[in-house]
């Protein structure tokens, strides 16, 4: 009952004309910028942060939050239609883009829109009911627990490898781990593989790799095939059939659960949530065979997880005052400039900010649904432009996007290099998605592993004595064994039935 009371209090604040306007502006700007290839929520918020200094605090928070989760949706759109990912829509490039190639763009976008709505709603319920308690979760996870969790995450590699053998996916993930180790090693301060170049000192940016491997490589591939593929041609069928619509719901719910949970953990947020949701879909969905070649579930799970994680990542900030990823650090800056010290008592000291935010997230959710689903029709007409006109524009946005992360033009060279690398991998039949997963997880695994050993003074028992770590490792081991035995059984069965196999690796 108290929750309803709090929500009512929040809605009172969120429904003022001013705050409604800020919410609308935030969602609209966020979606628009997310649509633009290359630009993502982090760059947008940091660019727009100064503007919020002259707006009242609650309005500023509502607007920035709107930009954040609006941009998550916009990113999904550019990933689905043009295979141009941003940090949290990498997985959308897999199934979403496949659906576009099959002409089912409208369906993909609709699924993404509805799943985002569901994901957002679930996350808001979580926020309202569990926020203070959930903030404490971050304290339960020590380095050894993160290690175990990340090892479990590595299992997702298998799921993210769509065509061909698992070993390709594993190899790519490991290459991603190697690429992730470029930069300054946290534990020793040594600079690894940086070739003495200053802009590599902090490692390669995720955006540079993602844009290069997906967007640029895809552009080159399209140019090669000379088919001048236009994302759409013909009618845009937006409204799905009832069966198709029904398929969205379970995936979206699963995605929301994964997203809400992963959003709470430092470091990952929406970036990891999408992989987790995708893996879950591949494992549990009824239509799992289709995933990877353009299934609704692949899109729905990811979109829901994205939105959910974006919202629950506010929890650590507002309930303990610790920002768990770069976007939250920007929100923290916005608070500090206004003279508010986010901290463990923030919800208690500034209830109007917290509950106003939760209420406006709900409003923003509705805005996004209403704004995007019809707007998609107009957006798609942009893609009727012939490819030969479109691709230089995409290249331009990729440059701007990669530049705007660090205001450094040198990052464009990295994007170009990864464009080449991504293209070569594409031609060799090796996939970029596991590479990116390895790139994200590898450094985290190493950092936490070494840190766990420093804290335990070199003793490995820390991994089994801590309950969370022990149970996660057990799950990972069990799963791994199960996968290997299933694979071995399959291989034996295949070999027995088909004498002359044509299968390549």
């Amino acid at each position, binding site marked *: 009952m108290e929750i309803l009371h709090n929500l009512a209090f929040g809605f009172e604040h969120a429904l003022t004309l001013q705050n409604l306007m800020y919410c609308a502006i935030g969602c609209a700007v966020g979606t628009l910028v997310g649509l633009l290839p290359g630009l993502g929520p982090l760059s947008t918020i940091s660019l727009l942060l100064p503007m919020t200094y002259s707006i009242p605090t609650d309005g500023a928070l509502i607007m920035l939050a709107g930009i954040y989760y609006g941009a998550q949706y916009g990113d999904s759109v550019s990933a689905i239609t043009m295979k141009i990912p941003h940090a949290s829509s990498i997985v959308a490039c897999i199934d979403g883009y496949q659906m576009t190639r099959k002409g089912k763009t409208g369906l993909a976008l609709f699924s993404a829109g509805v799943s985002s709505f569901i994901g957002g709603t679930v996350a808001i319920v979580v926020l309202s009911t569990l926020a203070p308690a959930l903030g404490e979760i971050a304290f339960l996870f020590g380095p050894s627990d993160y290690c175990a969790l990340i090892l479990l995450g590595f299992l997702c590699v298998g799921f993210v490898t769509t065509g061909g053998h698992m070993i390709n996916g594993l190899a790519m993930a490991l290459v991603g781990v*190697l690429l992730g180790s470029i930069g300054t090693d946290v534990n020793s301060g040594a600079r690894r593989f940086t070739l003495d170049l200053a802009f590599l000192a902090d490692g390669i940016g995720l955006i540079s790799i993602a844009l290069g491997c997906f967007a640029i490589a895809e552009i080159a591939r399209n140019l090669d095939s000379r088919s001048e593929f236009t994302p759409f041609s013909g009618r845009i069928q937006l409204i799905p059939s009832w069966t198709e619509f029904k398929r969205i719901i379970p995936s979206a719910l699963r995605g929301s659960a994964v997203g809400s949970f992963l959003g709470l953990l430092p470091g990952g947020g929406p970036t990891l949530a999408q992989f987790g949701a995708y893996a879950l879909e591949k494992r549990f969905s009824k239509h799992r065979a289709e995933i990877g070649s353009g299934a609704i579930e692949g899109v729905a799970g990811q979109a829901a997880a994205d939105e959910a994680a974006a919202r629950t990542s506010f929890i650590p900030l507002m309930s303990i005052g610790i920002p768990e990823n770069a976007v939250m650090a920007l929100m923290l800056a916005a608070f500090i400039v206004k003279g508010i010290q986010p901290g463990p008592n923030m919800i208690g000291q500034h209830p109007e900010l917290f509950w106003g935010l939760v209420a406006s997230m709900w409003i923003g959710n509705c805005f996004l649904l209403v704004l995007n689903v019809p707007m998609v029709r107009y957006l798609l007409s942009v893609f009727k432009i012939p490819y030969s006109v479109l691709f*230089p*524009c995409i290249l331009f946005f990729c440059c701007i996007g990669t530049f705007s992360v660090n205001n450094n033009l*040198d990052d464009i060279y990295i994007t170009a290099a990864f*464009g*080449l690398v991504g293209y070569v991998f594409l031609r060799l039949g090796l996939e970029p998605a596991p590479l990116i997963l390895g790139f994200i997880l590898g450094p985290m695994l190493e950092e936490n592993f070494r840190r766990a050993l420093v804290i335990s003074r070199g003793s490995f028992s820390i991994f089994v004595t801590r309950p969370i770590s022990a149970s996660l490792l057990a799950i990972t081991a069990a799963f791994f064994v199960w996968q290997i035995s299933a694979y071995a059984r399959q291989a034996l069965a295949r070999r027995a039935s088909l004498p002359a196999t044509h299968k390549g690796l």
Partner: protein
Amino acid sequence: MNQLLIRGLALVAIALCFGIPALTYRVGTFSNAGPGLFPLLVSCIVGLIGVVMIVRARFERVESLPFKLRNIFIVLAGLVGFAIIAKHFNVVGAIVYLVFVSTLAGSDYSAVRNIKICAVLIAIAFALHAFLGLNLTLL
């Protein structure tokens, strides 16, 4: 060319590129890992997978998709040139360069169309600068 062979070779090459420098960093032991331990370990696994692929390539053969280097290199030249021109001159020049060079990779080339594309992109660049405060020297 056998795709499997190339894949294997590529993986071995990557393993060497990362593994050899990793040896120059302190490796240490598992309980006291140095900066070189993880890269070395992972490079070894990648190298191993690469070798397995090369061996399999002797028994199985997969034809590879054609590599058309022209287009990708044109795109890269466009991107790299954009960065260089934007750094030393201004963004407008960089946009013009990018459009004219990258469209060489398209199927038909039209200077007039390129000029129109440039105009639109320049307008967008100005808008990004004005509304989002993008920090680039435009003119």
